[in-house]
């Protein structure tokens, strides 16, 4: 095929936008923790990005997009990016650019998981856990949905990674939080976000980057990209306002509620972005805002220390998004009708893929975290936790 420079330009910039989301997660999380762990959260995002970048080249891309083995995983034909060209490929843009675009998704998924281990993880153990997780959890899930795996064969839709990125990372965060245990003092005294403006900054970068995340997933600069872009924004707006309103009724309309809801909306629209109308997107966003807010309240009531709510926002928001895609998909947009247009099978396929991903991510993450914990210990000592990870892990101080 002839190279389409417009599409190539759009994928280049989309990749850059999504790259920025990983430090965006770092700042979002960094503002939410206590001062003594701020640097740690941002540093984890950078370290994750670098680790996954290398892993993706060596193994990850091939495991995800290599020729299918049993519906479960790709083979190693592309290990070391063997045979990935710079020409126009089959789709009008260089295959290497697709590798890059997928790389930044793998990185941010891992960064989201750091929610569950915030303020208490041992850096050395985390490095090992991260490499295992991206290889054994993320790569298979990417393969299932996009690389020719069983979910793709089944016809499950995941436009930009609601299942692959968000369900996986959200439920992984929950699993690892259960293994590592609560933060010292959790439930005994309040752990207030120490720097809300930095969280708002992270949210701004995430919202901004999400246009590349979802818009870029059209893999072309066309009407579908525009539609994905548009519904992404609307769902974010609806999610933010819904959470804001709900928290207003219960007390004060917090800025953290506004941005948490926006991210819930962004998460939920992710799998649906290429299939739904603007009206569908408003519905998806509204429900996401309310649902994730409810999940967060439930999580707090249950005394679960999945510290920065990746589970309630990414995990549950992603789950809702996967189901909603099956419900609200409209044939006129991209050829796929959903439940509301009478396609029960689409809904079931999506539900099956989402639930499988949820279970797989939770169970395997739990096992990996448990193993790492047994072998080298996932958690810092009590003294180190007390002083904070900035000093104890990085020798730095805000």
């Amino acid at each position: 095929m002839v190279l389409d420079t417009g599409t190539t330009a759009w994928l280049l910039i989309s990749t850059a936008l999504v790259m920025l989301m990983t430090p965006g997660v770092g700042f979002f999380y960094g503002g939410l923790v206590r001062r003594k762990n701020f640097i740690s959260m941002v540093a984890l995002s950078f370290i994750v990005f670098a680790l996954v970048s290398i892993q993706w080249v060596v193994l990850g891309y091939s495991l995800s997009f290599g020729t299918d083995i049993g519906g479960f995983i790709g083979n190693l034909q592309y290990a070391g990016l063997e045979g990935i060209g710079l020409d126009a490929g089959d789709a009008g843009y260089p295959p290497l650019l697709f590798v890059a675009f997928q790389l930044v998704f793998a990185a941010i998924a891992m960064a989201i998981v750091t929610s569950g281990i915030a303020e208490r993880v041992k850096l050395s153990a985390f490095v090992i856990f991260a490499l295992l997780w991206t290889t054994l959890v993320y790569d298979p899930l990417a393969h299932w949905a996009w690389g020719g795996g069983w979910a793709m064969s089944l016809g499950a839709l995941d436009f930009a990674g609601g299942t692959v990125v968000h369900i996986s990372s959200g439920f992984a965060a929950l699993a690892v939080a259960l293994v590592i245990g609560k933060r010292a003092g959790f439930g005994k005294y309040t752990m207030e976000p120490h720097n809300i403006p930095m969280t708002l900054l992270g949210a701004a970068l995430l919202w901004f980057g999400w246009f590349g995340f979802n818009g870029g997933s059209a893999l072309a600069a066309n009407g579908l990209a525009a539609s994905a872009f548009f519904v992404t924004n609307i769902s974010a707006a609806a999610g933010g306002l819904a959470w804001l309103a709900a928290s207003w009724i219960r007390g004060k309309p917090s800025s953290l509620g506004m941005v948490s809801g926006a991210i819930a909306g962004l998460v939920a629209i992710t799998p649906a972005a290429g299939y739904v109308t603007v009206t569908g997107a408003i519905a998806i966003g509204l429900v996401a805002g309310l649902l994730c807010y409810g999940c967060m309240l439930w999580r707090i009531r249950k005394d679960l220390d999945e510290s920065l709510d990746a589970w309630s926002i990414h995990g549950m928001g992603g789950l809702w998004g996967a189901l909603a895609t099956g419900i609200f998909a409209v044939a006129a947009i991209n050829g796929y009708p959903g439940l509301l247009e009478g396609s029960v099978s689409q809904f079931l396929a999506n539900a099956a893929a989402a639930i499988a991903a949820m279970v797989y991510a939770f169970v395997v993450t739990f096992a990996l975290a448990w193993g790492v914990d047994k072998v080298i210990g996932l958690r810092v000592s009590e003294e180190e936790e007390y002083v904070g990870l900035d000093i104890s892990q990085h020798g730095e101080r805000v």
Partner: protein
Amino acid sequence: MKLIKAIIRPERLEFVKKALEDEGSYGMTILEVNGRGDQKGIKLQYRGGVMVVDFIPKVMIEVVVKDRDEERIIRVIADSARTGKMGDGRIFVIPVERSIRVRTGEEDT
């Protein structure tokens, strides 16, 4: 009057505030400080080396009380701030000669 100057763990502040409130003592001033005590800082082991974090964030509470309340307030603070581990902090008592309300310019006694 006495100035009771307590240096405590930041995470115990809520408890101390609550305990003082229960005693009917509301006036107080809070300062963010860094401190080092008898423990000489916290020792962290890493890679065979040792790193000493000598200053740890603490909260300083300053409360001025009538002489007759001194003992009671000290007990309240000490009890509510205690965890029993190194680093719980200190309470110092300093004499105060006068106390004036800015709003009225009047002197408390």
